């Protein structure tokens, strides 16, 4: 468990941008479609290195997704990248028809997801993207917990021949996994073993959960922590095992309560092993402007909220 300390602060989006350049060097078919937010999502690095393989479509996200699909039809390996809401909500029907239904392996990589994007406010806080993307057949949906995991995920997309949506974040956040931490799509990582309760978290809430576990362990509560980096296909075995062995589940995510990670876990348990759950998520409300950390607190998805949820679910556990 000694691994789980923060070694440095680094943005997940930077992990994406850097890995894109690495992949671009290794494979000349890698191309990137950009929608005028290049610096923010860090595709600027790729654009600088490979200007010919960076295709600007302007501020036009519908066009972006279908242009990417067309590039794939021509044999290219396209990454399409913009902010979360504009990668999933704005072009939902395009992602649905030209990518998911058509099974075209476009890699949709979104930064600035979740409420932690902060001061830009609600219109830019993508809190519905896990729900919208997981409801689409054929889609893989994954979200990294730190810079290093982002790098691994982006590399793994290269051989993942399915439509995929990867959700990452703006802020510099703790890097706590290391090179040896596995990242296999669909295979959850149990970061901390425990018997009383399981916290299933994704994205930035994994770190919050680590902090929560630290606090709870002082009270003798044995928390299992699962990093559910892939929300679709979800690791049913890990969920059922956790329910069986710990009897209580808390999910934690920077996303609406309905249809996200929590919803996916609840669905699995309802049809396998009904188990008390608490949901740490944004409670069916839009966000607002503010700092990432203060919004996490105000909207109930920070460490303290996980601690509270664990205590609550333990009271409900038979």
């Amino acid at each position: 468990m000694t691994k789980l300390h923060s070694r440095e602060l680094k943005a997940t989006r930077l992990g994406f941008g850097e890995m894109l350049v690495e992949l671009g060097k290794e494979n000349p078919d890698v191309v990137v479609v950009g929608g005028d937010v290049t610096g923010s999502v860090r595709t600027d690095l790729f654009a600088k290195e490979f200007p010919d393989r960076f295709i600007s479509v302007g501020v036009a996200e519908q066009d972006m997704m279908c242009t990417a699909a067309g590039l794939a039809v021509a044999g290219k390996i396209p990454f399409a990248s913009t902010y979360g809401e504009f990668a999933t909500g704005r072009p939902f029907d395009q992602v649905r028809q030209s990518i998911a239904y058509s099974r075209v392996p476009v890699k949709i990589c979104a930064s600035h997801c979740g409420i932690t994007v902060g001061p830009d406010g609600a219109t830019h806080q993508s809190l519905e993207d896990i729900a919208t993307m997981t409801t689409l057949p054929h889609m893989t949906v994954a979200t990294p917990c730190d810079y290093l995991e982002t790098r691994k995920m982006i590399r793994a997309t290269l051989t993942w021949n399915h439509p995929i949506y990867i959700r990452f974040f703006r802020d510099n956040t703790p890097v706590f996994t290391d090179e040896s931490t596995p990242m296999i799509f669909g295979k959850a990582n149990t970061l901390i073993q425990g018997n009383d309760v399981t916290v299933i978290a994704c994205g930035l809430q994994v770190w919050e959960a680590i902090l929560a576990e630290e606090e709870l362990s002082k009270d003798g509560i044995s928390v299992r922590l699962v990093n559910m980096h892939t929300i679709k296909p979800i690791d049913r075995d890990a969920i059922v095992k956790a329910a069986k062995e710990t009897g209580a589940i808390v999910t934690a995510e920077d996303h609406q309560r309905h249809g996200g990670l929590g919803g996916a876990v609840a669905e699995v348990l309802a049809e396998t092993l009904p188990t008390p759950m608490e949901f740490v998520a944004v409670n069916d409300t839009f966000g607002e402007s503010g700092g990432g950390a203060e919004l996490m607190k105000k909207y109930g998805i920070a460490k303290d909220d996980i601690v509270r949820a664990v205590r609550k679910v333990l009271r409900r556990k038979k």
Partner: protein
Amino acid sequence: MKPDLDTILELSEMARQIRRDLMKMLLISKSGHSGGPLGLADVFTSLYFHILKIDPKRPAMPERDYFFLSAGHLCPVWYATLARRGYIPIDELKTLRKINGRLQGHPAPAYTHGVPGVEIASGALGQGLSIAVGCAIGLRLDKKPNRVFCLMGDGELDEGQIWEAAMTAAHHRVDNLIGIVDRNYCQIDNRTDKVMELEPLPEKWASFGWHVLECDGNDIGQFISTVEQAKALRAKPTVIIAKTFMGKGVSFMEDNYKWHGNPPNEEQAKQALSELAPTKYGDFVEFEWEKAPVEAGVRS
């Protein structure tokens, strides 16, 4: 560079056969679009039997021209053409829109549950041109000479995504791409000027940075020579505004938007087939009522 008369006659006969096929397919399916497909039989025949560099036996041939049907609801004419060109069995035309079949109501590619020759799904309007532009850019990156064609409906041009793609194509000087607009002045609810005025349409495309050509899309010779002309244009993408008549070839459907989305009933199909003379290619199915009436007394 108009093709010679023999070629045109040959193609016209095929177009007529495709129109016959359409009426029969739609009568069997009891669901699907008559008007647009009939209007496009000449365009599809010209493309698949004369213009496109393709090989039905190798639908994924690397040197192929890419064809995208952005307005997916027009697929019956695509299916009939693909069948006549040898991509799929002619007999399969019976399965249009049927469960467990490949001839989906809106086209899907073979690697999902659709048919060979279809590169990607369509049906939700407005997406095809972006795809075509992406494909054209991808081919150019590889310095490949393949051409990309994209067919759009005129009503479909109401979708803003078309104009996003139009801008992108011009911005990137995509000149291995030819767009074709099926200008039949009809969409579902009414004629296009009633639902959403598109004119001045050539000016719209020109102001979005495209070469614009116009032609009669029901005149095979003219359409082919217009495509030839388009191929020679450089530095910008080219759009051909092909004027067609919805329902072309069937008198009571012609130029009538009410035939956008309906199949003929048996009586209407009979009437339609009587107006579309049989061809040397033969139909894919013969209905009971088509069998020659048994002459009195001949019965042994």
